[in-house]
């Protein structure tokens, strides 16, 4: 009853479509405390991911691995590389599986989170995309069962709201120090918007 490769491809397609609207919004958010390229970068990443033909692929691990490579080929920017890292880590976990069990999502995300932390040397609480992922993991763990979509979306929204008034401590935004208080981290904003699109 889990997610097949075709479900995954569908979610990628919805995220890709959403980027049409999101690109400028994310660029604007990054322009305030970074270099203004988060939206353009994610657009390029999702263009490449959506262009993959996964129709003949059965193995979810192999699908995620191909998506990881597509993301990595599209950009050298921080968030893009972290996304590729997350996908690659999950792909290893799922190797040989035709379906992803939704109840394993917290464990998969925890693995991805650890890999991203190892890759980017950020800590939880630094106000990065990691804090969105961590919030989702926590919410999933205290979640009884049933549809995970609303849980993921709710946690992503709450994380964005809770971190808005804190200081960015990692990436380019770190240099802006207290000037980041009151602003959405572009990576966290992107996470929320894209999970909303994928869950639709």
């Amino acid at each position, binding site marked *: 009853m889990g997610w097949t490769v075709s479900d995954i491809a569908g979610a990628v397609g919805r995220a890709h479509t959403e980027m049409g609207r999101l690109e400028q919004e994310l660029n604007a958010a990054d322009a305030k405390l970074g*270099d*203004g*390229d988060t939206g353009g970068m994610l657009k390029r990443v999702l263009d490449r991911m959506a262009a993959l033909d996964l129709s003949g692929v059965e193995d979810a691990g192999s699908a995620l691995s191909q998506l990881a*490579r597509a993301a*990595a*080929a*599209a*950009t*050298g*920017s*921080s968030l893009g*590389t*972290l996304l*590729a*890292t997350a996908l690659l880590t999950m792909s290893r976990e799922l190797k040989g599986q035709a379906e992803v069990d939704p109840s394993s999502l917290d464990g998969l995300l925890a693995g991805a989170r650890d890999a991203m932390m190892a*890759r*980017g*040397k950020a800590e939880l609480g630094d106000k990065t995309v990691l804090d969105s992922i961590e919030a989702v993991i926590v919410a999933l763990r205290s979640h009884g069962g049933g549809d995970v979509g609303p849980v993921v979306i709710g946690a992503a929204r709450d994380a964005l709201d809770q971190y808005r008034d804190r200081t960015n401590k*990692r*990436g380019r935004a770190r*240099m802006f120090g207290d000037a980041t208080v009151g602003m959405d981290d572009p990576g966290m904003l992107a996470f929320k918007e894209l999970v909303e699109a994928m869950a639709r």
Partner: protein
Amino acid sequence: MKKIMNTAADFVDEMLDGLVGAYPELTLAGEDKRVVRRAAELRSGKVGVVSGGGSGHLPLFTGYVGQGLLDSCSIGNVFEGPTVGSCSDAIAAANGGAGVLLLYGNYGGDRMNFDMASEFAADDGIETRTVLGNDDVASAGPDEREKRRGVAGIVYAYKAAGAKAEDGASLDEVTRIAELAVSRTRTIGVALSPCQVPGSDRPSFTLGENEIEMGMGIHGEPGIWRDQLRPADEIVDEMIGRLLDDAPKDAGKRVSILVNSLGATPLEELLIMFRRAKSRLAGEGFEVERPLIGHFATSMEMAGASISLCFVDDELSSLLAAPAQTPFWTVG
């Protein structure tokens, strides 16, 4: 800010096209053609030396691919790290079976991509080592040297490691030399006016009419202070003072100096700076050898300059003197 370019989207690819069109000893490689490598066959058994980073810093990095320096370079968009794929392709291009040294500046995005590429390389049986340039004393305190950014001084590590690799040394030895050169090199920059990323509608930062910023990074990262322009000798005295205060414990009394234009600052001004730097260093009992003066690591048309000191010993000194032949740096 006016630029002689076509579209922002083509800026880097056309620049690379021009580079390999001008210098047939270089060629483009990799799926995205974002790797510059020596055109000649790899010498089997030679350790590869790879660098990379964002565009906009020429001659860094691609202008130093060639005999006695780098084997290959992965290049990103302007001020944006190269992709993992390009990093992987650069490693493959430099793999002569004896391992590959990844030698690049300490920036978050670049590190993630090279780290990931080196994991892929391990899967493919290519041994890699990583040495990060972290010469910018303005970017973190001496107790946090590992957080410092890499700027112009990395060319000393290129030159030393490149010469060592050309000599046929092992990956361990080439790595040791790169680490030695990095640990002996310190840089500080001063910015006078900004540059502009192609396609952007405004300069990367703003400075007042008569204002300078001490310690600014090569992408406009914030520095130590912003204040009125002052005479060259005063500026240089402060820069040399800060570099000497931060000198490595094992520094002797021999130093090579690099006076680097960030872009628009002309050679005349670099020579005026060098003059003072040399006399200050002599006053502190240093012997200045093998000065490098010119455009080595730029931020396009940014005005300003950086001074790097490399505290050399016999070993480093002879590696710096070894022959090298690249489009923008020839020795011997």
